[in-house]
């Protein structure tokens, strides 16, 4: 049984479904729920995801069946059918996806069944009541349905094409930039990546995703169900790896995928060499300041599992910071926690971070309070300073309290505007470095 959560950094399954659908070009959500759910959940991501905005058909533009008290008693399927019929006439879309809220699922409406009646009008249905899980569950439910209902079955496989998933739109505030960096890199080693949400994607293209040779999942907690659906329905195997940030992680990432698809080693080596050279030609610029001003920091990372390890690895292995403390909020299972923890053994830093799995922000703060308190009672104290907290906007208060550097990267990010920037790969890592170090010089 799940526990209560303090200062949640997630929305519900319906919220995850909406942020996912509105990120697919010309896909239209039709929300079978009470009137407020769609706009409220959509706006969670429109605002707190670096001001991503409503986009083509988000926010209060989302068609909704507006279920009220009387439908709870008499059922809302008829209302939904009417709503589907008017939506396909009045809203221009390539695919209409009916998603459901708590109210209609609790009363037993068969929304997926109603949607099925309009299949020839490009309508599909997914069950996504809030109580089914968090944002990540909603993402997986939508992707699974697309994979089963929209992606066409084929025995023809393209040897150098992958499906790249686990990057949750909106929940990864930098999803657009990250996808762009990774698809560009993969393209340079001859691999085409299907991404659902990247520039140039479309429903027509999604139909061809069954031709991919491999699925790559960049998260342990999102995309796993979708990857299994690709495997079961389209016979596409999958591997799970981390979001690569920085030269070392990206080199591993390219080699892992390249080898799985039989890409020549020389091609990968050449791209890695070129990109590494590019990376260091720019990183070199801050060497003087970093050395003269002593930019090495104790790093505290508070994030979901998608970002926690990759960010820790980047600051530890590329910038040479001290990985001090990591709090992860989205892994509950003991075995998965253990596996996730083991990743940190790969770090070369002499200090290995303490890892805490916790979804109550107050208890994370309590833990940090202890660290600070323990070491301030004596005249000489070796406390973890100077410190830099990388988290979400929720941790801004902590950074202020302890007087540390701070950057919000994980959701929610309401203190920054994010357009096309991303942190993945070689070039994304340069952007991340810019953002981290800008914090250190912002008062100068």
């Amino acid at each position, binding site marked *: 049984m799940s526990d209560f959560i303090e*200062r949640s950094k997630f929305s519900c399954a319906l919220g995850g479904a909406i942020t996912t659908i509105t990120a697919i070009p010309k896909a239209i959500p039709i929300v079978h729920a009470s009137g407020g759910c769609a706009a409220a959940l959509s706006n969670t991501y429109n605002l707190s995801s670096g001001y991503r905005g409503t986009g083509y058909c988000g926010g209060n533009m989302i068609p*909704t069946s507006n279920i009220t008290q009387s439908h709870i008693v008499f059922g809302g399927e008829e209302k939904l059918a009417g709503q589907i019929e008017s939506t396909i006439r009045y809203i221009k879309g390539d695919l209409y996806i009916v998603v459901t809220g708590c109210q209609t699922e609790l009363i037993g409406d068969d929304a997926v069944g109603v949607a099925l009646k309009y299949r020839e009008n490009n309508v599909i249905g997914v069950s996504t009541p809030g109580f089914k899980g968090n944002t990540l569950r909603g993402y997986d439910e939508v992707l699974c349905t697309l994979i089963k209902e929209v992606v066409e079955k084929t025995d023809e496989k393209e040897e150098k094409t992958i499906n790249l998933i686990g990057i949750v739109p909106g929940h990864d505030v930098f999803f657009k930039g990250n996808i762009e960096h990774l698809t560009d890199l993969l393209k340079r080693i001859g691999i085409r990546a299907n991404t659902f949400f990247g520039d140039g994607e479309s429903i027509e293209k999604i139909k061809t995703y069954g031709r991919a040779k491999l699925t790559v999942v960049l998260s342990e907690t999102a995309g796993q169900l979708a990857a299994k659906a690709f495997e079961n329905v389209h016979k596409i195997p999958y591997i799970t790896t981390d979001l690569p940030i920085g030269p070392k992680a990206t080199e591993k990432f390219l080699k892992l995928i390249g080898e799985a698809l039989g890409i020549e080693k020389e091609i990968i080596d050449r791209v890695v060499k070129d990109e590494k050279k590019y990376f260091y030609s720019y990183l070199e610029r801050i060497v003087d300041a970093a050395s003269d001003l002593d930019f090495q920091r104790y790093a505290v990372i508070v994030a979901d599992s998608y970002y926690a390890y990759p960010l820790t690895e980047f600051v530890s292995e590329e910038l040479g910071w001290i990985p001090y403390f990591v709090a992860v909020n989205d892994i509950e299972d003991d075995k998965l926690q253990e596996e996730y923890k083991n990743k940190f053994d790969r770090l070369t830093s002499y200090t290995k971070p303490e890892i805490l799995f916790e979804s109550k922000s107050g208890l994370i703060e309590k833990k940090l309070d202890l660290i600070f308190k323990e070491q301030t009672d004596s005249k000489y104290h070796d406390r973890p300073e100077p410190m830099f907290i990388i988290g979400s906007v929720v941790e801004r208060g902590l950074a202020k309290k302890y007087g540390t550097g701070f950057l919000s990267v994980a959701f929610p990010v309401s203190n920054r505007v994010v357009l096309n920037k991303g942190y993945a790969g070689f070039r994304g890592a340069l952007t991340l470095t810019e953002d981290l170090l800008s914090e250190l010089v912002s008062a100068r």
Partner: protein
Amino acid sequence: MANLLTGDLKYDYLSVDEPPVRDERIGGCTAYFGCCSGLKEDFRKGCAQALNRKFSQSGGCQLMLAMGIINTISNIVTIIHSPLGCCSNLAGMAGVRNISRASRGLKTENQTFIHTNLDELDVVNGGIEKLRRAILYADKEYQPEVIAIMNGCVPGVIGDDVDGLVRELQPKVSARLVPVHCEGFKSRFVSSGYDAANHGILKYLIREPKDTDESGTETEYESKERISKTVNIFNVGSNSHKDELELSRLIKKLGLIPRIVPLHASVYDLDRLGEAALNVSICATHDDYMLGHLKERYGTEYVLDVLPIGINCTNRWLRKIAGHFHLEKEVEELIEEETRELIKAIEPFVKVLKGKRAFVGGGETRILTTADFYRSIGMEIVGIKSHNLDRFVQYLLDEIDNPHLPVEVAAGQPAEELNLLKRLKPDIYIGHIGANGWVTKLGIPNIPLFGTTINYMGYSGAYELARRAARALKNTIFSKNISQNTELPLSDEWMQTYPKKNIVRGALF
């Protein structure tokens, strides 16, 4: 005092756990499209109230509006008894609450909220045990003065006995427990959320004050004297601190003592809501439940009339207050002085705005008073859109002298509004959050109808309304650029359909 707007309404609901929703208590219209004279007629006959729409888009949820009130109370932990989606917007609002608090000189504090995170198992077994643990955790970890429990749809449908739990736990915790029943599906009117929050404050939060005043040095005579001049001004989530300062300034000029409640108030202040000679609303849609019940409880008279926006409405608001204290002469002097000064100050803006065509969309009291102001300085109001319409603005509607004025009633529903705006092509749009972005995509310059840091109320607010509109028209290239380079999702068939065709007699609400 006879009060026209609340005439036959009852305010004796505090014995029940849940207040009635607006659908039952007030009623009103949520869907209409037509001319103003037609609406007045249909509203009087009750036909407008029976309308619904075919194609519908997402509106609001009463939970969010209830949260908008509860979340401003100082030293509070809110528990959202629901799955994670409800109020998930709070994730990125940490700073917003503190901006609001800092602007009022209040201590900034971490916004602590807890989701009971109801899942499939809880739907079967009930969520009460999880809620119990969450309440005990909040009390132990934070020792807040208040723990509010906001009920989402799931506990509402599965029947969690939240009030029973609160009665059981209250003796065991130090915080005051305040359950708020604001399940979204229960009402078509998001304003039910105001009543839900106010019900929680009135029934569970406020208690008899222990001392008469904070310092303890006031004599009984001084205390009576203070209370006899105290005017509680009931603020709303959409007004700024600057609005409060302006309204307080005017009240002080009448020789009265203004006190701003209930938003951002401390528990200490809320306990003393009864220490006032008059309760004054600035928005009837927000406050009637609160003010009506305070009269029941403390016998305090109230003014529930107009939103003090623009010259006419601010004058009217002040006259109603002054009337209670027999300050008719003083208020006329004040109005004369203030309007003279203001009219001179807005002259340069009026030159720019005169004859310009404006459309106003948003909450009923705000749009009608804002439209009245722009009309009063020579702008042409070409249309209005109201989230809903009820008895609280009927007299404002009656005062509109253009029988052909297009009126749309819709919460959200940008498709209908954009369709209308494309036909009307106003020079400027003044609208509620959530609408302005779409209007920009349509290529129409716009300014927000309200903002938590913008002063729109009182005379200084009228100056700002004029100044902002004039400024927006100084450079309109942004909306042009956006409209030429982005696409709206609305089909040609929709844009060619007259929106009135979307309005039908309601089957089920």
